[in-house]
């Protein structure tokens, strides 16, 4: 095993145990790219992608992956909320704080602030960061990238992930505590990769994201692929048209629920919908009737779809990239 596990933080639990936070580094050159995952204890897609990356990079550094060479460094933080993952809690289980809203953190502060400070300190040499996460627990997301902030971001590097959408988003006040915002402020571009949903593994999406990350590694000079070397994984037909598209807030259509009820989806994630195409129905679970039909207000690619059926009026049902 050529990964170097490094304990970036060890927290003394109240009852005589210690909880360690690990990072794995591969390679010794420059630049360094970081992968963060597992801020939310109910998300598993990121863990699975880290598993695949750690497996592959171990082969590369041990010379078992013919044609591949690591030029830079890759630092992987697979599980940044280990207590949450163990206890199946989305946030830090003790006080329900969101670690990914605790940045830049405080090294002698509350636990979540210590975690944030330790992660940020450990990222001091990285040139870019990839944060792996699902959407909220109510949605499934077609794999896409979110770029917060208005820092100059080379579009080619975001598109090299081979994902269908790069959503350039304004930061909200709430997100100023996020890792992405704080790294962006320090001049480290951070790609927030959203894919799939909570409480499960979406194997196809994980595969695409894994291949996309390797492609980005090659494009950014971290990983070298000798000519003629096949892809790390068999190149399947891309499930979406490439290259992907950069979209801006004005291109994103939010479909909100007009009424409270139970949502039953009719369209599938990744569909390109025409104006008026059916997205699903809102039904009355106790009265038995249909309350409303939900359809696309304009044409677009369905890239976020509600997976939790419980709706209030104003609940977000879907997002379309127009």
């Amino acid at each position: 095993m050529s990964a170097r596990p490094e304990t970036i933080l060890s927290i003394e639990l109240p009852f005589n145990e210690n909880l360690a936070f690990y990072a794995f580094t591969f390679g010794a050159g420059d630049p360094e790219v970081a992968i963060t995952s597992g801020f939310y204890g109910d998300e598993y897609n990121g863990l699975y992608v880290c598993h695949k990356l750690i497996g592959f990079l171990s082969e590369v550094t041990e010379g078992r992956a013919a044609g591949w060479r690591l030029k830079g460094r890759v630092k992987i933080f697979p599980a940044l909320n280990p207590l949450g993952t163990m206890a199946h809690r989305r946030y830090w289980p003790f006080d329900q704080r969101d670690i990914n809203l605790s940045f830049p953190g405080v090294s002698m502060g509350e636990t979540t602030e210590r975690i944030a400070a330790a992660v940020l300190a450990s990222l001091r040499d990285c040139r870019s960061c990839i944060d792996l996460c699902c959407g909220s627990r109510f949605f499934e997301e077609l794999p896409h990238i979110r770029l917060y902030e208005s820092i100059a971001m080379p579009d080619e590097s975001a598109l090299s992930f081979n994902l269908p959408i790069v959503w350039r988003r304004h930061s909200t006040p709430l997100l100023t505590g996020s890792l992405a915002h704080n790294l962006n402020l320090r001049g480290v571009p951070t790609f927030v990769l959203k894919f799939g949903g909570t409480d499960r593994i979406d194997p196809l999406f994980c595969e695409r994201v894994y291949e996309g990350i390797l492609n980005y590694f090659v494009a950014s000079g971290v990983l070298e692929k000798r000519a003629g070397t096949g892809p790390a994984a068999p190149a399947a037909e891309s499930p979406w048209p490439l290259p992907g598209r950069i979209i801006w807030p004005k291109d994103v259509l939010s479909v909100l629920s007009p009424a409270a009820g139970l949502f039953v989806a009719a369209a599938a994630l990744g569909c390109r919908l025409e104006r008026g195409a059916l997205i699903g129905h809102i039904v009355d679970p106790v009265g038995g009737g249909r309350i409303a039909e939900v359809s696309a207000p304009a044409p677009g690619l369905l890239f976020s779809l509600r997976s939790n059926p419980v709706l209030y009026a104003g609940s977000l049902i879907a997002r379309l990239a127009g």
Partner: protein
Amino acid sequence: MKTPLQEKIGLFESSFGDGAGKRFALVSGIHGDELDGLYLSYHLARFLREWESAGKSIRGQVSLIPVANPLATAATERFWPFGQIDVNRCFPGTNGTAADPPPQGEGASHVWAGALFEHLKGFDLVVDVHSSNLFLRECPQIRVLNRYRAVAETYADHTNVDVVWVHDAPTVIETTLSCNLNAAGVPTLVVEMGVGLRIQKEFVEIVFQGVLSLLQKLGILSGALPPAPPSRPIYATDQNVRYLNSESGGFFVPDISVGFKVEQGQRIGRILDALSGEVKEDVASRWNGYLFTIRAHPIVYPGSLMARVIEIA
């Protein structure tokens, strides 16, 4: 608001007064696990009913909205239960139409916040009552953003509390009810007291007297009330507030409550080890000053906040 089961959850308000004067609103329970506002509202409703039935006038309007996040309070939760969303990070909220989508994720809590915000816009003074959280016990205090310090200075002497904390804020505070109301020109005071999931009667009594003197100041109540003595609260700022954090993990047993002077070196509690019977840490004030926050939750991690003291030279 209609629920998915086609029932209704309502934002209930009880109003007193003749409408011919200033409008005052008391809001509490935006965090569903903060309960002192219930008891405060009960006292006020009772007082105002008796006041009216004694034939005395209430000039203007007093509105009580004690359960501002009913689904959470019913579920004994702090946040909007569906999705664990902090409603006090959802303001100014949205109107639920596609033209006004929520800034992130689930929309219902933003719609709820939007309705509450719109409703409160017409008031002359709003008091938003909070009861800390499960971890810290607070003496009754006013909190206000530095940029709205003038609001506190206008009213704080009439709130009967010992402490006004004027703080600079992280950006996230921009999404609170009080910040948005103040920005919209509605003077709003945040009152913090006690600890989550408990009612601290003596603190509620202090704030109750404070609200009565605010109502006198606004001219809503007058007449036979005894004149309220103005309080002279201590102003806490980012310059004089000191934070005491633990060094070890364990469980904390406090020596004292909160809301009085402490001396440098004075022990306020101990962090203990259940297995060995040892004392892991004596928690002592490092300053002379006024102890306005103390840890209420016994479980302590290294770095947990144990106390806040306003240093007094």
